[in-house]
């Protein structure tokens, strides 16, 4: 495909950078246009008049060294960055004719569209939270450089499957599946997107299955091994499927015919010939130059043709007057297969590890109507442990289904595989509690379908337990959700060794996001919490690199969940809120408990930004001002920015470095220890806290109006932070309170007084 021509055809209007409409397009153009960033050059901006989407054509400078290249990547690569809807991330498309298309980590696209680079291994909403233009371009440069050296797909990373994910799921049986064995398949529920489950047919169950509605005939094939690399577009008809496998050296039409013939021959399953067909193809995968390391298994549902009719098209069977038979021709003729539509489905390997035990219940203090957000590992276990103690949730919301790999840590059993997690947990809880008071809502917490009671259902509860393990959900709950209910957010640390509960106070003060900031502050200040946010070890990828499953034993989750249930369900929620953290030791030889009070935050609007300042910080700055007497003092500020919501959290301040200069009319912040402090803060909080600006005091008798020196300082901070898309911030303490002075990306100056 000529990608450049495709973009030229779609994006017909040339636009100057200052006339771009999309905010992310403007940010990206501004980054490159300043001349201060040398990772890419801006060639042109264009717009699609129909959709309003915009593209920036860049010349990306790839950081290639002199090492021999594995893939043909040039030191300069033309790339089109497409910016669509505001809630979507930009996409990057290589434009050079001859750009290698066999390398892994392209996003899949329909055959008539170009493919963009797969830049991230985490979900899009996590990327959006911290997206910056410079981070995006640097990610493109990184992708290109790592691809050039053949390192983009890590040595320890599982091989990419042959085909993209589909969204439909086929659950494999527990026993080893073998080509030639006879199977049927049926949907677990009536929902059209619910998983399909494979069933082994034998003489005992054949008669029963014959009566079942919605059954499929299943044929399982295995092809020769192929080298992993480009993820292929999914075939949507049988002819395309046959052709795709022929390209990789496998002729499936003959073995397919043989398998269908076997179905005819096995009398007890002949009824399957009248059922629609599911074709499952297993292809072993090898790494370049290596042996078989993995396999890719894909299923294709031929919904508009029965197994028997496919056999007719393949020339292996005939049907006369309702009777199946074999043709007399020695060489079967294969008829046109393009009319056989296929619906691809992802297969889910069976999971055969044992389930763990659940803790016993506790006496109830008070039944409080509670909503549980997230019925995943932690949420389900909270629900079921609490349920076994008689504590029920009024509402459980989740939009995920239970898959075999979830069994490692989920509260549900294998009989619920394929069920909606919310529905299944609800069913269990109602059974435990002896009534039907629990309601399941199967919907997306952040993007509700409009077909359920979510998020209006929040009005029915007094408490919300967020067990989604998602920062975007927690932030939505804190900042955007319409509710009066008090909320608690609970999650495990990335390694799974620690559990955390952030619990709002009465009237939602302190708020969840403020508790989150206080939590980070304690991670920095408390030596006993070192390593709390260290990364966990990934056990396996389920359906691609953005869906990793971390290696955490159920023993850990169970032990920590019990502690969480104690805090959330067994004890009253304190009016001042709180932060609770349980640290388990290696081998679970002990669990250390840490509790911190919630801290209030003061709010001030500064231009477009809402700034929340920890109240304790203001007191500490006031004390520093008093100690400094007639001299000015100051230091750095640490916090974070929520760029989507335009919220700044000012969390901590630091004392002036020893080489600072304190004068009656000025303060110069020194350097000793500053670098290490910021590095430590970032490391301990996994970059959730970082440098955000400077604080200083004006002497007694002076207000907080910024001086000319302060304006210069603000400009300096603005220059320092420009590539992180964060505004520059100064906090000034004086007789009239605390003034926040801010300079944003539009180089506008705002002030707010606390």
């Amino acid at each position: 495909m000529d990608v450049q021509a495709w973009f030229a055809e779609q994006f017909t209007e040339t636009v100057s950078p200052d006339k771009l409409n999309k905010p992310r397009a403007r940010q990206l153009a501004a980054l490159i246009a300043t001349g201060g960033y040398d990772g890419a050059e801006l060639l042109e901006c264009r717009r699609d008049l129909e959709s309003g989407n915009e593209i920036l054509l860049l010349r990306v400078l790839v950081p290639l060294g002199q090492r021999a290249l594995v893939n043909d990547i040039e030191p300069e690569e033309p790339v089109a960055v497409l910016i669509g809807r505001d809630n979507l991330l930009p996409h990057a498309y290589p434009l050079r004719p001859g750009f290698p298309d066999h390398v892994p980590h392209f996003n899949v696209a329909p055959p008539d569209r170009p493919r963009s680079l797969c830049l991230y291994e985490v979900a899009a909403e996590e990327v959006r939270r911290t997206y910056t233009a410079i981070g995006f371009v640097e990610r493109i440069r990184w992708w290109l450089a790592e691809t050039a050296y053949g390192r983009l797909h890590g040595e320890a990373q599982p091989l990419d499957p042959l085909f993209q994910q589909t969204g439909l799921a086929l659950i494999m049986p527990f026993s080893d599946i073998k080509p030639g064995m006879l199977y049927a398949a049926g949907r677990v529920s009536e929902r059209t997107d619910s998983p399909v489950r494979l069933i082994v047919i034998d003489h005992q169950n054949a008669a029963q299955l014959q009566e079942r509605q919605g059954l499929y005939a299943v044929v399982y094939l295995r092809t020769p091994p192929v080298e992993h690399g480009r993820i292929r577009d999914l075939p949507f008809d049988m002819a395309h499927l046959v052709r795709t496998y022929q390209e990789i050296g496998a002729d499936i039409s003959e073995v397919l015919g043989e398998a269908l013939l076997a179905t005819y021959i096995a009398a007890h399953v002949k009824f399957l010939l009248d059922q629609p067909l599911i074709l499952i193809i297993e292809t072993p995968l090898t790494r370049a130059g290596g042996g078989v390391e993995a396999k890719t298994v894909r299923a294709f549902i031929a919904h508009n043709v029965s197994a028997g009719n496919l056999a007719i098209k393949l020339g292996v069977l005939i049907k006369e007057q309702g009777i199946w038979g074999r043709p007399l021709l020695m060489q079967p003729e294969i008829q046109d297969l393009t009319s056989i539509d296929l619906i691809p489905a992802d297969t889910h390997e069976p999971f055969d590890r044992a389930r763990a035990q659940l803790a016993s219940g506790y006496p109830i203090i008070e039944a409080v109507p509670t909503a549980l957000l997230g019925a995943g590992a932690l949420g389900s276990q909270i629900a079921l442990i609490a349920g076994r103690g008689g504590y029920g949730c009024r509402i459980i919301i989740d939009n995920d289904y239970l898959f075999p790999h979830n069994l490692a840590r989920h509260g549900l059993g294998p009989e619920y595989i394929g069920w909606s997690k919310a529905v299944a947990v609800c069913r269990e809880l109602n059974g435990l509690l002896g009534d039907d008071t629990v309601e399941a809502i199967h919907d997306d917490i952040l993007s509700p379908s409009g077909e359920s009671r979510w998020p209006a259902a929040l009005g029915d509860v007094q408490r919300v337990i967020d067990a989604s393990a998602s920062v975007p959900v927690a932030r939505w709950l804190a900042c955007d959700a319409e509710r009066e209910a008090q909320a608690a957010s609970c999650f495990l640390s990335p390694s799974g060794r620690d559990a955390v509960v952030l619990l709002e106070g009465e009237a939602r003060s302190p708020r969840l996001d403020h508790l989150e900031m206080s939590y980070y502050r304690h991670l920095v200040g408390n030596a006993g919490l070192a390593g709390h946010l260290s990364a966990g070890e990934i056990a396996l990828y389920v359906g691609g690199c953005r869906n990793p499953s971390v290696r955490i034993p159920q023993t850990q989750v169970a032990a920590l969940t019990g502690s969480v249930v104690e805090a959330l369900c067994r004890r009253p929620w304190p009016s001042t809120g709180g932060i609770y953290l349980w640290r388990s030791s290696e081998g679970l030889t002990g669990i250390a408990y840490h509790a911190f009070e919630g801290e209030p935050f003061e709010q001030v609007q500064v231009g477009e930004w809402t700034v929340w300042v920890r109240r304790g910080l203001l007191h500490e700055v006031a004390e520093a001002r008093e100690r400094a007497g007639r001299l000015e003092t100051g230091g750095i500020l640490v916090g974070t920015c929520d760029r989507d919501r335009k919220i700044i959290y000012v969390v901590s301040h630091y004392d002036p470095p020893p080489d600072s200069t304190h004068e009656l009319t000025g303060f110069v912040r020194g350097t000793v220890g500053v670098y290490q402090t910021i590095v430590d803060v970032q490391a301990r909080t996994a970059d959730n806290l970082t440098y955000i600006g400077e604080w200083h005091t004006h002497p007694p008798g002076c207000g907080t109006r910024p001086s000319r020196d302060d304006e210069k300082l603000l400009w300096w901070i603005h220059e320092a932070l420009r590539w992180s898309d964060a505004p520059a911030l100064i906090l000034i303490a004086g007789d009239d309170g605390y003034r926040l002075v801010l300079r944003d990306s539009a180089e506008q100056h705002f002030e707010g007084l606390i």
Partner: protein
Amino acid sequence: MVSLTFFNLGNADTCRINLRDEQRLLIDYADRLCRIDASDKRSDLPKLLKDDLALAKTDTYKVVAFTHLDDDHTQGAGEFFSFDHDKVRQGKDRKKIGTLWVPACVLYETNLKDDAQIIQKEARHRLIQGYGIVVFSRPERVREWLARHSLTVEARKDFFVDAGKPVPGFTLGADGVEFFAHSPHATRTNDNKIIDRNGDSLVFQARFQEGGVNTDVLFAADVDHEVLAEIVDITRYHGNDERLHWNVYKLSHHCSYTAIGSVKGEDKTMPTEQIKWLCETQGEKYGYIVSPSWPLPIKGSAEDRDVQPPHREAANYYKQDVIRPERLLVTMAEPSEANPKPVVIEIGRDGATKKTIAAATVASVVSPTAPRAG
């Protein structure tokens, strides 16, 4: 991360090498900024170097090398460094020199002034006292000078390194870097009645090893094509071709045509045979050439007619026949002429890669001294 930082100083050289153990080396020092001229885009070299040393929590350079004593390689050194020979030039704000590298001519040049004279005195002091110095040349060259100070060649031979030898003090195994001396070399120093500064400059190859991969950086001081040709001939004669291999080539004399050939040329300087070999066969395809110079002149402009470098014709040779055009890095034009910044090249498992200007972390950007608040 091992890195080289070439500072934007106009037609002047200063390169800082950061080793993997966070030690720093400095090759030349030239504080050229005019502090009363707000439009001067050259680096504030002492400030940048001090901020960097503060980050590294040290006040000492493991090595400071003065390739020769021209002003564009020494200006301001007398105020920046601490000199053991002169108590007046010591103090807590001055930065210390662990080992001083100089060419032999530094010891006996005459009519030196200012910073050059201070450096000479320091070099003499250290050699006489017998510590903290490496003199590039055969020790016999300075026999008379040593004798005048009651010293013998034998007594001080460990402080000399001749061309064609590794420079003492560094090994690939222990330090991840080694240095190989190319000049001053015997052909130029023998029978040389008149000292040619540029001819007796330090020329050396730095070889880094990271991730099992060697990366070579050639430092050519301000020597001309004749000296380079001698270096090539001698090196090849001794079978040390790989000692002129380069991933990064720090150009001689600010992109002057004299480093390529004797004739500037209409649009492109044509190389001598040896220079052609050095540039076109010893460099890496995706290597870098660093020109510590003002921006390249536009054809026909006043700067183009100026005899002083940089010379457009020389640059055209490098860009057309040696490396990709964007890999000729002119210090006063990176990332742009309007706002030049020091050029940082990182050395890693892929060789040498130019670091993006804006890729610095928040911590490193804001940790230097903040402007005054009031």
